[in-house]
């Protein structure tokens, strides 16, 4: 770290690239784990067994069992599926919706711009988690409702960004050239503007994955997200916290999995942003 400041720009860029690649590898590994979760889990995550309640980690149950005799390790692996895939899914959907809205606003301006951007302003006037808790609470629990509750405000970030970028490049000569050569608005937006702004939007999206994961876990912890017996790290910690004295592993296993995963995605976001900074994407 000490010689980072003395690194030549080229070397620093190489270093940042390697850093991004290593975190991409780790993140992909996590995604693969969550996709293959049903095959990787050593035991059935939902089978209860009153004969083996709260037993300590062993060869058969690598992370012990919980108060219903379920295999904690299998539940943590299945929980990875819920936590990681739903966080990435939510970021992807709000990224798509937000970017398209933002591009339309920036390109056309006028009434559509006014309506969408004022809506974004009002949504941003709510503290995000407060709105999410209230919406999820009113809609009732469930993963989909939790995702909707978080997504209501999440798209505004990309919309604002895409709008300002679109506005700044729509007067460039190459857009005028495209117009003169008879390109439709659709072609201009998606073939000429999008490739120029997608980099910085994607950088922002990667930095949001960790935060989104914390949001989903928080709602599930409060009982407003994933409903037990489905495994999810936040709800597992909530279920297990009253038994922490008897079986600390039931809290620690999902906790460690969650912190490590969020750290990897946070690092990924940070390193992508640093690299983009150096390469001048933003």
């Amino acid at each position, binding site marked *: *770290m*000490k010689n980072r400041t003395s690194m030549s720009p080229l070397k620093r860029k190489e270093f940042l690239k390697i850093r991004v690649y290593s975190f991409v590898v780790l993140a992909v590994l996590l995604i693969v784990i969550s996709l293959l979760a049903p095959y990787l889990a050593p035991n059935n995550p939902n089978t209860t067994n009153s004969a083996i309640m709260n037993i300590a980690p062993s060869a058969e149950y690598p992370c012990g069992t919980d108060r219903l005799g379920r295999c904690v390790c299998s539940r943590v692996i299945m929980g990875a599926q819920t936590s990681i895939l739903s966080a990435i899914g939510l970021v992807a959907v709000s990224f798509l919706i937000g970017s398209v809205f933002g591009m339309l606003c920036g390109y056309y301006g006028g009434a559509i711009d006014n309506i969408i951007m*004022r809506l974004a*302003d*009002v*949504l941003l*006037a*709510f*503290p*995000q*988690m*407060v*709105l*999410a*808790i*209230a*919406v999820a*609470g*009113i*809609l*009732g629990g469930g993963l989909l409702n939790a995702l909707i509750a978080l997504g209501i405000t999440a798209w505004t970030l990309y919309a604002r960004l895409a709008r300002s970028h679109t506005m700044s490049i729509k007067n460039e000569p190459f857009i005028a050239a495209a117009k003169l050569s008879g390109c439709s608005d659709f072609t201009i937006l998606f073939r000429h503007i999008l490739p120029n702004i997608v980099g910085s939007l994607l950088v922002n999206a990667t930095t949001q994955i*960790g935060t989104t994961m*914390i949001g989903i*876990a*928080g709602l599930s*912890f*409060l*009982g*407003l997200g994933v409903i037990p017996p489905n495994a999810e790290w*936040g709800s597992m*910690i*909530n279920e297990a*916290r009253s038994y*922490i*004295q008897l079986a*600390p592993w039931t*809290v620690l296993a999902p*906790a460690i999995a*969650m*912190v*490590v995963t*969020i*750290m990897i995605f*946070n*690092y990924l976001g940070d390193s992508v942003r640093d690299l983009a900074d150096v390469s001048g994407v933003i």
Partner: protein
Amino acid sequence: MQLIPILLALSFLVFLLMYISPGDPAVKKLTAQGIAVSQEVLEAEREKMGLNQPFFVRYGNWLAGVLQGDFGLSYADDMPVLPKLIKGMRYTLILATSSLALALAVSIPLGIITAVRSNSLLDHVVRMLTFAGNAMPNFLISVLLMYFFCIRVNLFPVIAKGTVQGLLLPTLALSIPMCSRFIRQIRAEVLEQLGKDYVTGLRTRGVREHYILFHNVLHNSLSAILTIVGLSVGTLMGGSVVIETIFRWPGIGKLVMDSITARDYSVIQGFVLIMAVIYVVINLLTDISYRALDPRIELE
């Protein structure tokens, strides 16, 4: 900033939220109070709650009530919502203030030291800790704090109950994630200021390092610190819901979680509205105080 239109739109969204929520409010109210729902009771309740009126009339009546401090009646016990919210608000304010104070008291010195001595051992240790802190959701921190301090060491009561002793752990739980963010941001800001020309200028003129740091650099970092605090208010509000629920701290966050469990929708509605209004006003105050700190900034 156009405060009035934002507040109006905000109140409309909050009302809409209740309007589109699944189920009949009269049925919800009756079930919340444990009254058997029959057609006659339902009709009477609908009439009483004004549910038979058109949407905009209902919104108008509701808004007129809110402006006069009438947030409606709780579904659970028919008591006015506002006094409940205000009572919880007091406790939440205590918790939020103490957490913010603790977070600032820890992160301003640490942020400055790690910036001045960047790449020292302390800097690396703090950086690692802040990274861990940023990856730890507040509910996990609470559960771990509770485990160590209440069960292992037996220092604090498990249930906060609104006492001074009970305030300590929720404060810690709320301020640890805040510290992690603050330290990194303050460090970055101070580091940036230290690299500016005026600092070099002051140094070459022989001004003492301490004087530069506390007199010039800190002064110039103030507006950034203010931004950080302003931005954290939203997270603080969301976080207090989680932490109050875990530690049974009798604030507005616990009230709203209890109301969600009891399906007491009018309290949830009042909660969102109050939180959003406070949030908007605090953001406005932050904007205004920028100008006080830095006269170069023009207000929009």
